[in-house]
């Protein structure tokens, strides 16, 4: 984009007065509010909102932001983001994630535990939370690891980590492979009512795989992982969940079979939820093209039929939430033969416009779509976010719903540029991001 992006860190000590956002299209997916009006913040909270708040109704002395008729919605909640700090700051930092996040309208990030050291100790939980507060951009809530060193054998101190602030637990991009360990994980977590998030991939079927198994992989001569690797692990874990009780969430599902299995499990009343990531409903395996490593993701981009089934799962509610699955990499990790390149793509800044395709293409209403990236993921993680509510934190995003632009990886504001959406034309631009009543990001068109 040729326009100017400006970030202003919001420090907790900065005084914050009252601001009136007027002339907005107010959207609150939790209550399906979609109306013209305004919103008034007082300090860090939402004081009032509705059609009654207009330029005329606002008393003097209050900062007024004219929204120009654009959409004012709760800030986005992205529940799957790798930050890389501490440990791999050359790939990404809390500050770079905060800049990318706020540029994408994301006000709350739940970050994966695969930092160095791993988030399996309360001191790292506290470090991440404290650093993010000092940076003053997107709010960061950490996941804790499920097993020590992601080794899949010994549990981390789930209870103590949860008390320290870990919102849920995952071994990130490793599945807990041993069935007995997974059973005990679910059972132990249920003791404290904690959410376990599984990367659904049977590791023995995925060993050495670089992309989805199928015709494209065969033509490219690349080793593939079958969709069954996802289904097998999900089916197994659902059986274990029935044994153990507890709460289980499958991250970034990518296959039609997974949608089917989870749909049936939900119908049976199991306490299971899932999300998908933006690439899995917007791209398919052909994006790999001529060995484009930016399209090397885990799970891999699947067939067109799987992509369509993921859209269907989002529409019918089987898929609860959409995340970015933001995974920053430096160039050295991607500029490699396809089989050797690292998995993952950045996505914080493109989560909103790519997700809006589901609205623009007529699959979901605007509020239904926004629910998948605001209130629903917040509910899954137990975060006080994702709603327009009096007294709630004033975490907001103002966006132009229709403006078109072209995603260019090298223009992204995150430190890493490995976007699978490079070159994609999208509609929807974040104009302003507000966190705790303070404007932290603006775009001057």
């Amino acid at each position, binding site marked *: 984009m040729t326009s100017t992006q400006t970030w202003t860190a919001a420090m907790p000590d900065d005084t914050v007065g009252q601001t009136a956002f007027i002339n907005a299209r107010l959207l609150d997916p939790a209550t399906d509010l979609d109306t013209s009006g305004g919103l008034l913040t007082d300090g860090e909270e939402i004081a009032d909102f509705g059609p009654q708040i207009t330029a005329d109704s606002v008393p003097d002395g209050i900062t007024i932001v004219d929204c120009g008729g654009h959409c004012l919605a709760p800030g986005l909640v992205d529940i799957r983001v790798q930050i890389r700090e501490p440990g791999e700051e050359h790939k990404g930092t809390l500050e770079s994630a905060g800049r990318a996040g706020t540029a994408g309208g994301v006000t709350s990030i739940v970050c994966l535990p695969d930092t160095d050291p791993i988030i399996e100790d309360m001191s790292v939980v506290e470090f991440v939370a404290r650093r993010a507060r000092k940076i003053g951009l997107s709010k960061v809530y950490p996941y804790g690891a499920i097993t020590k060193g992601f080794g899949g*054998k010994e*549990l981390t*101190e789930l209870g*103590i980590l949860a008390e320290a602030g870990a919102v849920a637990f995952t071994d990130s991009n490793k599945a807990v492979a041993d069935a007995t*360990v997974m059973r*005990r*994980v679910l059972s*132990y977590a249920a003791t404290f009512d904690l959410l376990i998030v599984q990367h659904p991939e049977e590791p023995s079927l995925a060993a050495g795989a670089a992309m989805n198994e199928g015709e494209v992989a065969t033509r490219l001569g690349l080793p593939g992982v079958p969709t069954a690797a996802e289904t097998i692990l999900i089916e197994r874990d659902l059986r274990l969940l029935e044994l153990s009780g*507890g709460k289980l969430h499958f991250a970034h599902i990518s296959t039609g079979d997974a949608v089917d299995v989870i749909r049936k499990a939900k119908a049976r009343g199991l306490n299971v939820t899932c999300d998908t990531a933006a690439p899995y409903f917007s791209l398919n395996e052909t994006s790999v093209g001529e060995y484009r490593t930016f399209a090397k993701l885990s799970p891999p981009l699947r067939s067109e039929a799987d992509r369509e089934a993921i859209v269907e799962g989002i529409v019918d509610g089987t898929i609860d939430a959409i995340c970015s699955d933001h995974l920053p990499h430096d160039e050295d990790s991607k500029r490699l033969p396809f089989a050797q390149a690292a998995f993952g793509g950045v996505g914080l800044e493109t989560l909103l416009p790519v997700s809006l395709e589901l609205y623009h293409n007529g699959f979901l209403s605007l509020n239904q779509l926004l629910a998948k990236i605001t209130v629903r993921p917040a509910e899954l993680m137990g975060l006080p976010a994702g709603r327009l509510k009096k007294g709630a934190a004033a975490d907001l995003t103002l966006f132009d719903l229709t403006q078109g632009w072209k995603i260019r990886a090298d223009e992204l504001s995150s430190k890493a540029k490995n976007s699978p959406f490079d070159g994609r034309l999208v509609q929807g631009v974040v104009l302003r991001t507000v966190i705790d009543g303070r404007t932290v990001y603006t775009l001057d068109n």
Partner: protein
Amino acid sequence: MADDSLDTKRFPHRHLLGIEGLSRDEIALLLDVSDTYVDQNRQVDKKVSTLRGRTIINLFFENSTRTRTSFELAGKRLGADVINMSVSDSAIKKGETLIDTAMTLNAMHPDVLVVRHSNSGAVQLLSEKVNCAVVNAGDGSHEHPTQALLDALTMRRRRGNIEGLLVAICGDILHSRVARSNILLLQTMGARVRVIAPRTLLPTAIENLGVEVFHDMKVGLKDCDIVMMLRLQTERMHGSFFPSVREYFHFFGLDYDKLSAAKPDALIMHPGPSNRGVEIDSEVADDYSRSVIHEQVEMGVAVRMACLDLMTRGIGDDPDQRNL
């Protein structure tokens, strides 16, 4: 001192394999006789000749110091000849099976075999192959009847009655024979039982045993008369049952904060040996206004004397028993 009626009463079972199958009256009889031995054990002269001429073999396939010593002392104070055999380090290494060992010992005409084994059901199997009485001193995760009896004796002497007590059993229920025997005994005697543990340390369908299940100590201990802590075996301290000793103690270790949820005069019990700083705080374990852990050990000798006494009363009366 023992009154006449207690002296002549008979215990209607040949073996004591578990609490399961014992009636309320039978348990009460065992406790009544135990009371008389508590008195005897506090005398200067602790020895009688009730079991003079009888032979007791303590057959321990699993390491134990406390239980074996307690049984040994019980037999000796009753005047019996007591032999200790630790089989784990002799016969098994030579390839002898459980039944071989039982038959060998049986040929020596013991009157009572006191048996501990790491496999559930092993003591019962052995009892089917010998002519003498068999006392289960703990089999696997199944039963430990004399522990439940000594716990009951401790409670009854402190509280007057077991009926109506609210007892919380806390910790590793999954692997605990003490918990299973206590649940059976306490329910038979009319107490209410709660179990408190992380879900990973609770066996499947435990609620079908009639206990109330809790995962939060302060919630589960509310209004309890008795707080019974279980020992966490060291081999379970690492792995996937729970993450660490620190976390276990934080959520399930008995300290004053958690204990404050129980009745102000709630008794603290532990089958021993306790892991201080793991399942119980040192201060709490040593609080003699509340902790009856040492009293449990004292009751243990008396209960085992009562068991040995009652189980040998019929010997010689029944010709079949000698000639199986």
